[in-house]
């Protein structure tokens, strides 16, 4: 890399922004600024004159960036980076990763592509992290509701924990349902005041 490429990062998720920023800096890119949202984006782009702007594809502020690149064609403001690779394939993988990038006119695609790929990789691993967090949370919730259903069964029917567990499993199998769903029904049912 002869001169380092400067980047403006716009991301409303601070934890993800930190991941991306760390990777980009480690790879030798200059991080000009890290904005939580595009508030004042017009001003920020003019002030920092970045070579690339990286932004979450779901950000409503993308239309602001788009207007900058279309209207200020003679300024070194960003143009849509999809020009870098031409075809729809690259757009597809960027969309999937959740990254959208805008790069300055005159920059060669080869020089910018690695930075964008770093961001895409970081966005993807952030997605995985969130998904696995959500899964863990779901499993915890599931265990909680099953324990509660078992507790209610034990108290109301005066049975052992093992018998309560067995009841839940049989109900789930017979109704072609999950233990969680059966547990939810039992809790809803047994929680209503007895007549």
């Amino acid at each position, binding site marked *: 890399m002869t001169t380092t490429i400067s980047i403006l990062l716009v991301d409303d998720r601070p934890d993800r922004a930190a991941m991306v920023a760390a990777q980009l800096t480690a790879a030798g890119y200059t991080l000009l600024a890290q904005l939580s949202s595009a508030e004042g984006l017009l001003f920020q782009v003019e002030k920092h004159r970045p070579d690339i702007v990286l932004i979450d*594809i779901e950000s409503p502020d993308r*239309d*602001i960036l*788009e207007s900058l690149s*279309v209207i200020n064609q003679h300024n070194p403001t960003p143009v849509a980076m999809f020009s870098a690779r031409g075809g729809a394939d690259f757009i597809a993988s960027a969309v999937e990763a959740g990254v959208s990038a805008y790069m300055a006119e005159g920059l060669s695609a080869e020089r910018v592509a690695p930075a964008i790929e770093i961001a895409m990789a970081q966005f993807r691993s952030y997605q995985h992290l969130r998904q696995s967090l959500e899964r863990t949370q779901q499993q915890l919730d599931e265990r909680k509701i099953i324990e509660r259903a078992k507790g209610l069964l034990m108290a109301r029917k005066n049975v052992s924990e093992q018998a309560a567990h067995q009841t839940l499993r049989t109900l789930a199998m017979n109704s072609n349902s999950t233990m969680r769903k059966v547990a939810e029904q039992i809790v809803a049912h047994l929680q209503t005041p007895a007549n």
Partner: protein
Amino acid sequence: MTTLQAEKPNIKLLYLRLTDSAPLIVAKELGLFERYGLNVELQRETSWATLRDKLIGGAADAAAMLAPMPLTVKQTLPHCEEQLLSGLILSCNGNAITLSRALYDQLELASDGPVNIGAALNTHIASRASETNPLTFASVYPFASHTLQLRYWLNHAGIDPDQDVRLVVLPPEQMVDHLRRGDIDGYCVGEPWNTLAVQQGIGVIVAPSNTLMPAMPEKVLAVTQSWHDANPATHLALRAALLAACGWLNDRSHRRDAVGILARPEYLNLPEETIAASLEDQVTLHRGHAGHGVKANPDWHLFAHPQTDHGLPSTKKGRELLALCNEIAPTDSTEAEVFRADLYQQTLDFLRHQNQQFSQTV
């Protein structure tokens, strides 16, 4: 009934939170997609650029898109090899220009109307020439009817949209908040975001778009060229269902039902009274005494109709839009061909054939 063999019966269709997304939403709720063998999932987006990129990237099958958008892919994504095309203009009009209540009050108007307000605004801008911050107006996307309508109104009032004011872009659902905060002084946006500002007492409607540029193409059904090549029958089924939905919406007695559907949380998630205004041809210019400022505004939303050419995307209409867009940034007139009149004709022929078969059987 002729049945189409859709190559891809499961469809993802993108839209934004706007009243003129009605054809997609009612087609879904009335079962019109099913009638033509499609199972459609509607997905709400917040940004036009995102909607476009998801479509090009293959994350969706089709989208209700700003009419100039498929015509200007080359301008916004210069080396993108994928092309967009449209065989159906879903709607015309549907926007308005709104000024902040604060700015409107400063104009000290003797009478309303877009021409009078424009003239007063021109005088006002001249009187504040010493101020460093120019008045700021927003539209929703660089190449959009909104930008064109806003520039048209300013130009007519003798205001240079590039010199005398600052034009910015904001996503539709953020307009009202930005107006309330005073970040912008006015905007041109689709309904119901004008009526909402009036109902909240923070904005005044200057001109509904149909009074500025009548029957201007507003939203089109857009797909990528490669998707169309791979799924021609699916595309035809989609156009047939949406044209049928537009036809249903053209019957004014259905509009009240449409309002109820659109207001639901999964669609526009706004009060019925906010959505009802433009669909029922009523404009409340500003909030005042009872009935004050309420006017009939027929054709605020013109949906595609088989008997008129409102739904017809022709090369001629494409060229006209591109000529207007050229004022914003240089455009390429050869792109006008992405408006496919032949596909529209195919839809009409298909529906006609189907109706004939139907009347023969009853």
